[in-house]
């Protein structure tokens, strides 16, 4: 049972029932840890546990082997209750080399279990990891349990029959490790074996070797259990709504949400992108989905990417572009063009650590200012933020709905954590989504055609070039009300500025009121979050509430405009705190819009908040 792994963690009544384990796989970039983690995730999902993951890899493509900066890690938190974060502290650390041990062991819970490949703890690797002596031998790991055995040698042994070269053979180490992990948590091997055979269909020897390594690792567990400290744990399946499930990463689910959104809007999609970490994955996903009426275009830069998308929207497709911080900065001028020409457009921002190039592979929420305010002129646009891989699907659909119904660019915020993390996902039934088909203007309306006529949402008509009788010109210069001709008149500019603002403000009419996702309306303390801080906030609030603390969790999905009841809701609490992975950006909007004394809680380290940090913030807010 998992309790053995958990004994030191103090338990609240609410969490005691939950069985959750945090495992971290860490190794050299070349060791295939992300793959191991991904496959372990899948097996966890198949076992019916709820889960959350946190892949954390180096900025280098392939850092020199054995170095500290070349360590790649994958953390998974799984359990028989709802899991919202990848876990504060691992209970189990698998360390494939000294560098992996060194960089990851400080995070391990006291008393947690280390599994290390002793075969990699030779002098050379110890030097590279800047260890003076072998930690497996010098007693420095005393506060943890540890198990070291020569995984390298065991793997070589296991795959010997398949005649692979030494290098190739050693590549199977990760499968050996995965086999061991599968045994530890009492998992089925068959799905993994199927997957390996499928993946290496063209290289049967490699497939067989990997399967052998997997089996060997599994067998090692069984054997070692008898003789040593290695134990098997069982984590019950988490209760879940009945239905079909799979795992999904944020990048996948945004891509799928965009596809679904375009279908609901009855539009073809044009995706213009330019590679940048961590946004590229969306481009990669969509470029495999040509049969869904999607054109993907890798442009020469971010400016061309958004401009091509604007061109496609002008042609009558749903233009979508995507980037992260630095690339989004470059798109600012063109966003203004989409705003003034009132064309639908989705801009996905997968946020990463800034400023400038910053920390490309780390997560952050520091582009909220840029999203809401970062353009020349009075240039409002709606902003929607996803809070998890699963949520990203619905957020993408919502962004498409707003963009097409209101004829406006919409910014969809996600971040590096969401993009890479995986969650179990109940495959949505598209029949349960109300379609919002977009109609093009194809006939000159009574009273004549006006390119800037307005419907009840203040949206202008969308006319595809190629439509007879409605030729017209648009552009970035201020347009005359109604006709859309160039117009520099003071009154007209005032009117158009007001209309653009009113149109975007009006989006609030089409979104749900802000709810309290945990706790009550009104009370001592509201913790208000957005984006990927959802998990740690939610867990912390849950724990605190279980301990009888008067605290509620409000999670904002619609960053701009906000739900209409937001001001009243916030004012119903004595204290409002706003945890963000930035220096305090959402809090600016809340204070400006509602004049509530929202207090920032900030972390800008490229790492998600831990639940413990959130609990401390709640304690702090209630003390003062």
């Amino acid at each position, binding site marked *: 049972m998992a309790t053995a792994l958990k004994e030191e963690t103090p338990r609240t009544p609410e969490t005691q029932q939950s069985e959750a384990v945090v495992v971290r796989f860490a190794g050299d970039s070349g060791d295939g840890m992300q793959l191991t983690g991904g496959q372990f995730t*899948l097996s966890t*999902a*198949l076992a*019916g546990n709820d889960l959350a993951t946190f892949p954390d890899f180096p900025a280098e493509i392939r850092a020199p082997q054995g170095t500290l900066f070349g360590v790649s890690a994958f953390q998974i938190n799984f359990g028989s209750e709802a899991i919202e974060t990848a876990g504060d502290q691992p209970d189990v650390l698998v360390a494939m080399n000294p560098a992996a041990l060194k960089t990851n062991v400080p995070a391990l819970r006291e008393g947690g279990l280390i599994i290390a490949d002793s075969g990699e703890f030779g002098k050379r690797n110890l030097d590279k990891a800047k260890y003076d002596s072998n930690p497996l031998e010098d007693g420095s790991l005393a506060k943890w349990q540890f198990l070291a055995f020569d995984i390298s040698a065991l793997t070589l042994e296991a795959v010997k029959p398949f005649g692979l070269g030494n290098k190739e053979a050693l590549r199977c180490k990760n499968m050996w490790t995965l086999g061991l992990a599968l045994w530890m948590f009492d998992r089925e091997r068959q*799905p993994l074996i199927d997957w390996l055979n499928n993946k290496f269909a063209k290289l049967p020897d490699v497939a067989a070797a990997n399967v052998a390594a997997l089996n060997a690792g599994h067998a090692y567990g069984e054997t070692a259990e008898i003789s040593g400290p290695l134990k098997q744990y069982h984590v019950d*399946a988490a*209760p*879940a*709504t*009945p*239905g*079909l*499930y*799979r*795992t999904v990463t944020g990048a996948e689910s945004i891509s*799928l949400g965009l*596809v*679904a959104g375009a*279908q609901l809007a009855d539009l*073809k999609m*044009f995706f*213009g992108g330019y590679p940048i970490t961590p946004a590229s994955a969306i481009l990669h996903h969509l470029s495999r*989905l*040509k*049969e*869904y*009426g999607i*054109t993907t*275009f890798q*442009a*020469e830069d971010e*400016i*061309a*990417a958004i*401009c*091509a998308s*604007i*061109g*496609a*929207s*002008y*042609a*009558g*497709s749903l233009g979508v572009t995507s980037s992260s911080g630095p690339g989004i900065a470059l798109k600012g001028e*063109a966003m203004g*063009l989409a705003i003034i*020409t009132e064309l639908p457009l989705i801009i996905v921002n997968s946020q990463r650590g800034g400023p400038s190039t910053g920390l490309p592979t780390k997560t952050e929420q520091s582009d909220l200012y840029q999203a809401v305010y970062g353009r020349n002129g009075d240039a409002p646009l709606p902003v929607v933020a996803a809070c998890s891989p699963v949520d990203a699907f619905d957020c993408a659909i919502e962004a498409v709905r707003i963009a097409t119904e209101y004829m406006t660019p919409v910014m969809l915020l996600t971040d590096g954590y969401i993009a890479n993390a995986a969650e179990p996902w109940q*495959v949505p*039934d*598209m029949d349960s989504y109300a379609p919002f088909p977009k109609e093009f203007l194809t006939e000159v309306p009574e009273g004549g055609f006006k390119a800037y006529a307005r419907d009840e949402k203040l949206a202008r008509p969308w006319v*595809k*070039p*190629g439509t*007879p009788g409605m*030729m017209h*010109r*648009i*552009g*970035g210069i201020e347009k005359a009300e109604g006709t859309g001709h*160039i117009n520099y008149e003071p009154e007209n500019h005032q009117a158009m500025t007001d209309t653009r603002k009113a149109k975007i403000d009006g989006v609030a009419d089409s979104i749900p009121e802000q709810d309290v996702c945990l706790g009550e309306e009104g009370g001592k303390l509201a913790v208000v979050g957005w984006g990927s801080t959802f998990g740690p906030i939610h867990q912390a609030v849950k724990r605190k509430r279980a301990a009888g603390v008067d605290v509620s969790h409000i999670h904002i999905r619609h960053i701009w405009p906000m739900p209409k009841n937001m001001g009243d809701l916030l004012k119903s609490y004595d204290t409002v705190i706003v945890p963000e992975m930035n220096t305090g950006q959402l809090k600016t909007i809340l204070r400006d819009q509602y004049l509530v004394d929202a207090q920032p809680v900030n972390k800008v380290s490229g790492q998600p908040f831990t639940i413990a940090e959130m609990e401390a913030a709640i304690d702090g807010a209630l003390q003062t």
Partner: protein
Amino acid sequence: MNDMTPVTTLKDWETDQEVRWCPGCGDYAILKAVQRTMPQIGGTPENTVFISGIGCSSRFPYYMETYGFHTIHGRAPAVATGLKLANPELDVWMVTGDGDGLSIGGNHLMHVLRRNVNMQIMLFNNEIYGLTKGQYSPTSREGTNSPSTPYGSVDHPARPAAFALGSGARFVGRGFDVSKKLPEVLKASHAHKGAAFIEIFQNCIVYNKDVFEDFAAPKGAGDRQLCLEHGKPMLFGDPKVGFDKGIALDRDTLTLKVVDATEENWEAAGVLVHDQTDRTIAHMLIEMPFGPFPMALGVLYDDPRPTFEAAVIEERAKSAAGKEANLAKLLGKGQTWTVDANEGHPTD
């Protein structure tokens, strides 16, 4: 030229918008030339789109009774690329200036040419920034006095046609605002499938008056203009009295030279026959210095290859072939499991 029976007249291509260029600006003549060309190529206003950046030249779309998009500075090629990929049926014309297309927009210009998106790209080269009141541009000649270079510019100017060819253009044409032959070049550019680059010298009478007079002035034009025609010898001189000079190639030094030649004796004089598919000659014609040589006008290079949008469509079709666009299936792809209604726990 593949003229068609016109179904429209010039009038059909005029908008009701007041034309707002300076009186006497070369842009007027280009506008008329384009409006004259459209019926001849059998265009229909609703299927035609003009895309421009920012600049005096880029106001062009407002005056064409077609679909039009006056975008932002330098980005017209990107907008046009998206438009064309989203609807390849449209006849797309891009209008840009020497600043819009070669200063801020040089990169997009390069890529639209390299990719070979099927459209006509008209670069109005007045060797100056008109709209912002006369600063020198990347094509301004060395020593140009302008508000930002009060003591004369020092940059070596860019050469649009050389840049286009270096970027991979498969059609390079040249004309000038008031030239009667401009519609012919436009027609040829339209007939070319792929990105067709046309440099149009344009007189900015306010900020760079008459910089092209040396070859564009009607008087003596014959001596100063080499009007290229595919398959015809490169003769020049006043055609009314008969050509009297030609362009020949010194095949030892690989340099062009001007020789005395007439329509009768050109072959003996070694005058080159224009082969618009010859890249080497195209390079030479483009780099041929005006002064010692006439200005090369017309279609300098025309050698089509597959277009970008055709390739994109083909690739899309190929990769989608046999696949079903089933969203439900897509959502449920990969390894899945089912949670049973009774237990709320997985069953497989």
